[in-house]
């Protein structure tokens, strides 16, 4: 039998005081999808960095086609045709889709011809993954989801033999995930070896041939995916029994209407949106990319304007010219993109939590430090935020803990209405469960919650009612007892 395409042998990496990876071994065959899963902090990032040449291991070796290689730089990894699809978007917003895809690898040619050629080559790649995107558009104009597609095409453009996906679907919706998985199957059929790292276990189950589970820097198990169910996988990851997909939903009694929109619209974006959220109720807005549900919630938060219709809070008609107005009326907003919109990364955990209540914490303009610390500490405890202390920078926390800060700062504010946009994006299984439980608790306490998620199943688990939007209009309305993925998906394209 020939050697596996990629072998990672007894990799060990320590940092002062911590063992990041201890004796990690796994292999990848050509034409195989091998998933690597584990909670945040399990060592996945370090392992990916080692494979990509960003971090040198203390001991152990990496073999490609049976030949030991020293990957001391990402370019060496690329030369060995091992490419990584980054989780973080590292694109130039001012350049076109095609230019980004072939950045640094532009084909030689005469000036005028090159652009057309680039666009054509990019179009080929995009067609491969069934995405209809104009290669000449500037990346800065694209949505987060479309930018992720560009990132994937960039890796594909290197004609890799080993392709490493690091959370490729973190910002894709269900529809696009299906496309991506189809592409991965195609790549696999072409004989590529694929390492797939994702928090979304349902995808991992669908796409992988084998799975390696990491916990605390060690390999817990490498198994064939066939015959393994999600519960067993989660148990391996967290080391304890833990039901996946469980949203902690509790029956609640809903009160008066806290938030209401009456036929609000904005020219060319959305129109005739009427919705109600009662106290203690969780209402979801479902829809595919481009359905404009994000624009609707931003209008409700005063971050975008509306041309018609009215917004009512606790029965009172309100004019929301800015987020500050919305906050004054007791509305809180947890944006999906926590790095760009949710947090001030170079500031501390404590400062970030206190951001919504600065005015309350002032005495003659000075910060009441003791009160700030008390508030922030109690939230760190209730939300189980893993941090070294309030002075740790927000940028140093894992995704799940960052998300908890975003939630925490709105709990601190204490408004009656919460808009949560994809609160579990890119968050690991354990934190996901805690976040859903927190959102249920908030509803229990009588908050009115408007929820957006990319995963329909999560939304169905969490919500009392779901509205469906398509092309800027409401196309469906379901009560919990009538939830059905099929019926809802039907409204996606209505």
């Amino acid at each position, binding site marked *: 039998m020939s050697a596996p395409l990629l072998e990672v042998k007894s990799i060990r990496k320590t*940092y002062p*005081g*911590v063992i*990041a990876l201890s004796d990690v071994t796994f292999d990848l065959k050509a034409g195989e999808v091998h998933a690597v899963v584990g*909670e*945040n*902090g*399990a*060592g996945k*990032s*370090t392992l990916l*960095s080692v494979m990509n040449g*960003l*971090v040198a291991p203390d001991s152990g070796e990496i073999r490609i086609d049976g030949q030991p290689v020293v990957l001391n730089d990402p370019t060496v990894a690329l030369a060995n045709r091992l490419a990584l699809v980054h989780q973080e978007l590292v694109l130039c917003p001012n350049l076109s889709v095609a230019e980004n895809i072939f950045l640094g690898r532009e084909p030689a040619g005469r000036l005028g011809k090159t652009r057309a050629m680039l666009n054509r080559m990019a179009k080929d790649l995009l067609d491969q993954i069934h995405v209809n995107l104009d290669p000449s558009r500037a990346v800065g104009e694209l949505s987060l989801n479309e930018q992720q597609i560009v990132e994937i095409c960039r890796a594909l453009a290197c004609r890799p033999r080993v392709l490493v996906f690091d959370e490729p679907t973190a910002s894709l919706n269900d529809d696009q995930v299906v496309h991506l998985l189809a592409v991965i199957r195609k790549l696999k059929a072409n004989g590529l070896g694929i390492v797939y790292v994702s928090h979304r276990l349902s995808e991992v189950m669908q796409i992988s041939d084998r799975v390696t589970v990491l916990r*605390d*820097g060690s390999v817990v198990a490498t198994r064939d995916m066939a015959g393994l169910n999600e519960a067993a996988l989660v148990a391996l990851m967290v*080391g304890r029994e833990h039901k996946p997909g469980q949203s902690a939903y509790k029956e609640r009694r809903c009160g008066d209407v806290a938030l209401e929109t009456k036929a609000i619209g904005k020219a060319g974006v959305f129109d005739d949106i009427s919705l109600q959220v009662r106290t203690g109720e969780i209402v979801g807005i479902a829809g595919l990319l481009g359905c404009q549900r994000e624009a609707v919630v931003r209008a409700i*938060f005063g*971050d975008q304007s509306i041309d018609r219709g009215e917004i009512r809070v606790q029965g009172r008609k309100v004019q929301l010219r*800015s*987020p*500050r107005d919305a*906050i004054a009326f007791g509305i809180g*907003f947890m*944006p999906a993109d926590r790095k*760009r*919109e*949710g*947090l*001030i*990364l*170079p*500031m501390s955990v404590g*400062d970030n939590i*206190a*951001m*919504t209540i*600065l*005015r309350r*914490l*002032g005495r003659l*303009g*000075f*910060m009441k*430090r003791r009160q700030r610390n008390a508030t922030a500490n109690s939230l760190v405890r209730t939300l*189980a935020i*893993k*941090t*070294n202390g309030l002075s740790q920078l927000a*940028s*140093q*926390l*894992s995704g799940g*803990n960052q998300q908890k800060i975003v939630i925490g*700062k709105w709990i601190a*504010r204490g408004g009656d209405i919460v808009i949560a946009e994809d609160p579990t994006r890119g968050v690991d299984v354990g934190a996901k469960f805690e976040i859903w439980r927190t959102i249920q608790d908030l509803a229990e306490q009588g908050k009115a919650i408007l929820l957006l998620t990319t995963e329909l199943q999560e939304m169905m688990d969490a919500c009392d009612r779901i509205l469906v939007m398509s092309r800027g209009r409401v196309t469906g309305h379901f009560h919990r007892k009538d939830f059905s993925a099929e019926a809802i998906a039907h409204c996606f394209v209505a």
Partner: protein
Amino acid sequence: MTEKVGEHVMTMSTLETQVASQARPPDAWRHLSVSETSRVAVLIALLIAGQAITPSFLSLANIHVILLAVAAIGIMAYGMTLVVITGEIDLSIAGIAILSCIAGGLMIPTGSAALVIGTTLLTGLAIGLINGILVAALGIPSLITTLGMLGISRALANIFSGGQALYPEPIAAYLWLGRGDLVGIPLPVVLLVVLGAAAIALTKYSIFGRALYATGGNVKAAALSGINVVGVRAVVFAISGACAALAGMLESARLSYINPAGFEGMELSVLAVTVLGGASLSGGSGSITGTVVAALIIGIVNNLLNQLGVSIYLQQVVTAAVILAVVMPGMWQRGIAK
């Protein structure tokens, strides 16, 4: 048992962060803490070198000379630091200083010190506020806004004064600002220290300070958290304008001469002090203490070069070299510069 697991996971996630920060050095712009130490080290080295070169270096008289020389630039740099923390820049300070002083100077014939001083400061505040409104409310980039304002205010200063210098001799209180002292300490130095303390309180201990760093760190996230980002930026430009007017007045009073062509290139010296003080032009970082140390470094270098009789042009070369020497080690350490 769960506690133990939690602890372990915590150290692991800090570790992942370490890995991440190794992979992405540009983040290091955000906190140049290493250069904080190198800044202080350079300051101490200069003090020792100074004493070795000229025995009178650490005499009270010479310390007064050094502090007097940096008073104006330091006060302007306080304002500039606040502006730079929000991620903006103020290139109009020299223009504001001169126009404010001319505007105040036009009040000299009234003989009222309050009117002269008040007009000077209010003019600076008003021009700064205009800058702030243009930048924050109308969204014009600060580089362009303040560059334009620099040109406009210099030109207006010439128009109002007819190109002639004004002489504040009749206003005793005005002269006192630049030449007087309080319990033996020159007044500009008193103001440098008092305003420095106020600026430190503002940036470190006030709620405005948190809003300031938030606006510079991530303006979108700050706005979505309910911070008045327009107000914050308008206020810092107004403060910078007032600081410029005050600094201009101290210099004019010291020279007892309001020169409509004065302060040439001052904005760049002030910006240099601010950057040397650790503020990153990308916003979100910087400190008043850093700016103070930076101003002292520049002041001492110039003082020593003066005592050694080095020409003014060579002084500029040496000053620029010192700035590079202080800023670069920190960057190397963090892998920003290759």
